[in-house]
């Protein structure tokens, strides 16, 4: 009999063995003839241009932050799903359990949706645009002078 953590250890061992066997087998069977084309980064058929570590626009930051937030929310759904579908609990309570767990999750997601609505109203979901400032430069030459020159020539 293995404990719960024992199962995790078995999973780790299986994963490592599987990768080792698959990659090691391929390594031993395949011919090895590298060239520049083969070693270059695969970018959907485009020719790779420049380095990957370039400066990203600050605009992506807020979007990335919001994405991470809701990604983390999704992680919470997985442990909930196992309890939600627990057959013994559902049978013992005549199906009330399912509704209870479902409504609890809706409350949780509802609160997070309120957060999204807040960010939306605040305008954090808008793509940050650079504000174009009109130059208030006042030319000393009057506009009529230009018109006269245009008429003359």
């Amino acid at each position, binding site marked *: 009999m293995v404990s719960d953590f024992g199962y995790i250890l078995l999973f780790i061992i299986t994963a490592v063995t599987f990768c080792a066997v698959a990659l090691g087998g391929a390594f031993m069977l395949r011919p090895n003839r590298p060239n520049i084309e083969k070693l270059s980064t695969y970018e959907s058929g485009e020719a790779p241009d420049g380095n990957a570590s370039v400066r990203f626009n600050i605009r992506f930051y807020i979007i990335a932050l919001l994405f991470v937030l809701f990604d983390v929310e999704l992680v919470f759904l997985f442990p909930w799903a196992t309890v939600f579908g627990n057959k013994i609990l559902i049978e013992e309570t005549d199906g009330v359990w399912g509704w209870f767990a479902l409504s609890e999750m809706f409350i949780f997601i509802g*609160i997070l949706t*309120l957060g999204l609505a*807040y960010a939306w*109203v605040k305008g954090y979901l808008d793509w940050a645009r650079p504000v174009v400032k009109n130059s208030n430069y006042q030319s000393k030459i009057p506009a009529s002078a230009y018109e006269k020159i245009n008429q003359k020539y």
Partner: protein
Amino acid sequence: MNSIIALSLFGIANLFLGFLNNRKILLPATLAFVLVALGLNLADWNQEYLWFNNMLRTNNLSVNFASVILVATFLVVAVSRGFGDDEEHTHPAEYYAIMLFSVVGAIMMVTFENLIMLFVGLEILSVSMYILTGTDKRNLRSNEAALKYFLMGAFATGILLFGIALIYGATGSFNIHGIEALVLTAAGGSAPALLYIGIVMVIIGLLFKVSAAPFHFWTPDVYEGAPAIFTAFMSTVVKTAGFAALFRLLGGAFTGVYGTWIYILYFLTMLTLIIGNITAVYQQSFKRMLAYSSISHAGYLMLTATAKVAHTQSSILFYSLAYSVATISAFAVLMVVAETKESNAEKTNENFDIFNGLAKNNPLLAFVLTVSMLSLAGIPLTAGFWGKFFIFSDAFQRGIVVPLVVAVLMSAVGIYYYFKAIISAYFKEGDVPAIELKPIYKITLIVTTLLTIVLGIAPDLVKSIF
């Protein structure tokens, strides 16, 4: 316990009230929210409940602590004046919402039954505080304070969490009553070394949050950099919650092995008292002096939090209440006076000399300042005196003489720097124009001052409840 749920929902409601384009509504709404939470909190009186799968426990002790926290929050919100009329740079809806969220964390810290809840509560409180410290975005000091606070706080949280993990490793339980039972059986000396290391680490993590020496280095910078209103909030609510958590652990779960931590705590108490009081003497800035004074008050509270006498809890509660009320009125006076002076000068001046000649045109403000300083110094007929008296007599009954002598000596030192403010208000030449106070501000100041005096004359009014 419903107060936790209510406050979370109120916080969200507050965020959305901010869209109404009406800044006037936020202050009364927040005050009403805090009052409702206080009512819900008092509804748990005289009932002992376990909530959320043994995660939280409410009893009279936790109701008392939560009430002190909520009263302090109410007073701080009342003197916040809606954060002014600067539409562009202040966001009152967010500030009030974060304050309400942080109170949720504080209440979790006084009701926790499970160490995980202690951690969650502490983090809710701390993260809110990091944000509130940095709210004055255009002020470099505020930004610096927020970053310092965040970095140091994150370290302290890490140490606390490591301690909790080690305690779990040694006892196999997160539940503080489970830990208490296991610690008692292990008191014979059979406990693994992990337990002792874990206990000391948890204590270090909590002492950091209540700014006890030698973990106090962040306090002066953070208190000085943060906007005064949030400094008042930080030095009252966070401190009360921190000591409640510390007391519940030391007086409950860790009692069995008190030999491991009691001498460390005595030493740190003396160190905190000496560093806090002596350094406060040399401060030019009133706000920085209050920061060191909050360190020294942490020392007094540590003196009594170290052991479980029958009335230790009521001493801590009374002291927290007296200290909170006096600190809030001191900060309230500082805020209005500094703001009036600010219009003339470029830089915000929060030194002692802004109070020069305060009594001439503003007798009420000078009186409020005087009473709060007397209370903090522990002069008789103020609440602060009885707070100190209860703590010293508790310590005397338990026979811890050396820390007690240090505490008495240091409270004499305290009189010097608290009186500096009174002297500048009454005896120094200076011109403070007559300051127009809003009604709610004036009422709050009168209430805090009256509370200090009434508790100083009849401490049993509150002490008998605790």
